[in-house]
């Protein structure tokens, strides 16, 4: 059925998903740490909105709980933690000039296309209105990975990781109207712990290597230099 036939709600959801994708691209391009974190927070917020809408439209009210968790974790806790760490580590002014941003953008576009191509067979069989969003979420995940690959700063890598998590969560929500509750809780808990551990690690790395540049983490290798 054509897009026009969708209900407004569903159209809204799809628009949100498009915006989420946009935020991932922003993350990819964003070079200043603080604004990176802010962008990440906004992505989390969009995710939260999307979840609520789906909860509303599908009438699965336990989704509100997960939406709440998203709000708490992805919008407030993690960004807050990251900001605090950045302040503590005093790297707010850090600007990481991404190598060849245009190339990365093109690569990102290619990834979106690829994930659409991969998800193509799936959209044939789902009867949910939101089936197309699988491709989006996959793209978000892949973009997150791409970001982890292109960024040298540990913080940026963490943000990339977290945006991957966002993509996963989005996929879970839109494709299957959320996972079983216990799993949701588990995942949320994991994210929480992970975020804390990342925080610990920043300090350890800083203490051990003196910078947060992951390219300096190259003591362990097999190659004879």
């Amino acid at each position, binding site marked *: 059925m054509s897009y026009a036939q969708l209900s407004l709600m569903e159209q809204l959801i799809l628009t949100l998903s498009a915006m989420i994708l946009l935020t991932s691209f922003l993350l990819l391009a964003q070079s200043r740490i603080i604004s990176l974190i802010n962008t990440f927070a906004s992505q989390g917020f969009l995710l939260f909105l999307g979840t609520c809408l789906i909860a509303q439209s599908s009438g699965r009210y336990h989704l509100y709980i997960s939406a709440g968790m998203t709000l708490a974790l992805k919008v407030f806790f993690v960004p807050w933690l990251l900001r605090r760490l950045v302040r503590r580590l005093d790297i707010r002014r850090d600007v990481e000039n991404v190598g060849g941003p245009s190339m990365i953008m093109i690569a990102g576009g290619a990834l979106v296309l690829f994930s659409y191509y991969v998800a*193509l067979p799936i959209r044939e069989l789902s009867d949910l209105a939101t089936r197309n969003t699988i491709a989006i979420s996959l793209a978000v995940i892949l973009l997150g990975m791409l970001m982890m690959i292109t960024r040298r700063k540990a913080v940026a890598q963490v943000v990339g990781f977290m945006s991957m998590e966002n993509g996963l969560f989005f996929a879970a929500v839109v494709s299957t109207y959320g996972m079983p509750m216990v799993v949701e809780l588990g995942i949320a808990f994991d994210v929480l712990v992970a975020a804390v551990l990342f925080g610990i690690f920043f300090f350890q790395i800083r203490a051990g290597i003196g910078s947060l540049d*992951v390219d300096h983490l190259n003591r362990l290798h097999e*190659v004879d230099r």
Partner: protein
Amino acid sequence: MALNLVYLTIVAAFGSAVLPILFCRSTVASKLVAFILLGISGLSGILGGGMALLGKVDISAELPIGLPWLHCHLHLDPLSGFFLFLVSLISLMAAIYGSAYVREYQQGSQPLLPLTLFTGLFVVGMDLVMLADDAFSFMIAWELMSVSSYFLVAYQHQNETNRRAAFIYLLMAQIGGLFILLGYGVLASFSGAFDFSSMQAVELSPAWSSLAFVLALIGFGMKAGIVPLHVWLPQAHPVAPSHISALMSGVMLKVAIYGFIRFVYDLLGNIYWQWGVMVLSIGCISAILGVLYALMQHDLKRLLAYHSVENIGIIYMGLGLSMIFAGTNHLELATLGLIAALYHCLNHALFKSLLFLGAGAILQQSREHNLEKMGGLIKRMPVTAFCFLIGCISISALPPFNGFVSEWLTFQTALQGTILTNHILTALIPISAAVLALTGALAAACFVKVYGVCFLGLPRSQNCAEATETAYGPQLSQILLAALCLFFGVFPTWTVSQIENIAQILLPTGIPMATSHGWLWLTPVSSDVASYGAPMVFLGIGSAWLIVWLWLHPRRKKMEIRIAPAWDCGFGSLNARMQYTATSFTMPIRRIFRPVWFISENYQQPGENAPGGRYELKVGDWAWLKIYQLIGRLLLATAKRAAFIQGGNIRIYLVYSFFTLLFLLWVVSL
């Protein structure tokens, strides 16, 4: 009965392995326990194996161990009985010899326990190989043998050479084991089961059975030490304790032969003559190269190890001939070849262990392993010298000792090549026989060198001048082995008629003609084709000698022998540096067969750093230098290159994971 004796063999050997651990408080007690039990195992094995061979027994048994759906099958027939007899005989000798021989380790920092432990396990492994009747237990026994012998080679691990030798040995043993496993796997994948009886049952297509054959040839050849798979042998055998070298060289190689015969004759069944050609040519190459390399060695045990390669080659020649004839349906001749090969297994086991034990005695008493440092030992250790002489005569295939009989039988088999309709073979087989003749002659030359340089002449080093005769245990074992060498040389007819039992099972036919003329005459094909009266020869030499002696006897009364210094051509008196050295002895042969070795000579003119000049000669093994070291270097280079995967940069690692994911997604969405 026979089976119980064999069980006793294994149990006793196992006991000799583990019990000493309990007595480890006192070395003497543990040593005694170990060697007595080893001796018992040897005795019962001799009896059991002998019974199995002479009585043509055919017993199967099954032990409730192994895989849940494949229990451990055991089987005892004349073939396994024969080899069991060999193993046990030599292990008995090793037990008699070792108890006194290991005394030197007791004083040293070397703990004795590993030696006894792994010696026992080694023997257990070999015995079990003989008994195993399914691929799984065969492989277990086989690898047990390899691993325990590895530990024995590495026993004196403080020396770099031992460690290297042990490593090479274990590596090649492992590879060989894998090949054998594959061979069995091919059979099993057709028969669907791992026990030998069902493997015998299946009929394989020529291609598959040839594949299995090649796998077995490589796998067992790796252990038997055919050229060019022999390189571990001259490294591993010299460094092991001497009675272990005797076991390894004397019987472990035979275990490989056993496996090969079992695999080809028993499991594969119908044999193609092309295999025979393959085996025959491999045999020729191994024999000739083995003896040529042996000629150039100056480390006594290393030399003997190369001679093992030679003798294995001779055994393979016999097998190859037998397989050619079997493939062309001349079963009687096939039997003859097989008997020749088996007989040579027996002989080689005897004289090679004898020689290794002798070498060990020399090594222990004179602390010298380099021939160039020996000399004149016959006066210091007469018994060893006498036994060693017999060993030399036997291995040089001289009548009336045992080495000659088996080579003679091989010759006779080769001479029947005329009945083949394929005339290429008819022409090739005599050439192989000529190679055998060359091998024998060179072996004789080599052992003249060994005996002459090591026992005769003047001592070339202080150690040798002060050497003394070994203890009684070693003497006894050597004397026994020497006696056996003579026995099997003088009574070949009886022996052949016994070994025939094996052939009657493997290729269901015998050679009635061989023994038809009574115990005195051995007539492999028929009396007017060829005959050999070994007892008569012995008698003849003896009587001729006796007559001459009697005739000269009265005169000897009148004038006694005068002892005088040797004629020195007017230059000062004779000294050890005047004698021919081992190097100079083999110089002509080195010149004739030059390209065979990798030779680097350098001669330094007399100068301040080398008064009187110095001459250095290095003789290397082409196979080792050109094949094995090359492979090693290649491997290391590859590893160096492959290391880039672990480059250290986490972002690169993420790239790997990323692209793996993309690739797989692309694959599945095709």
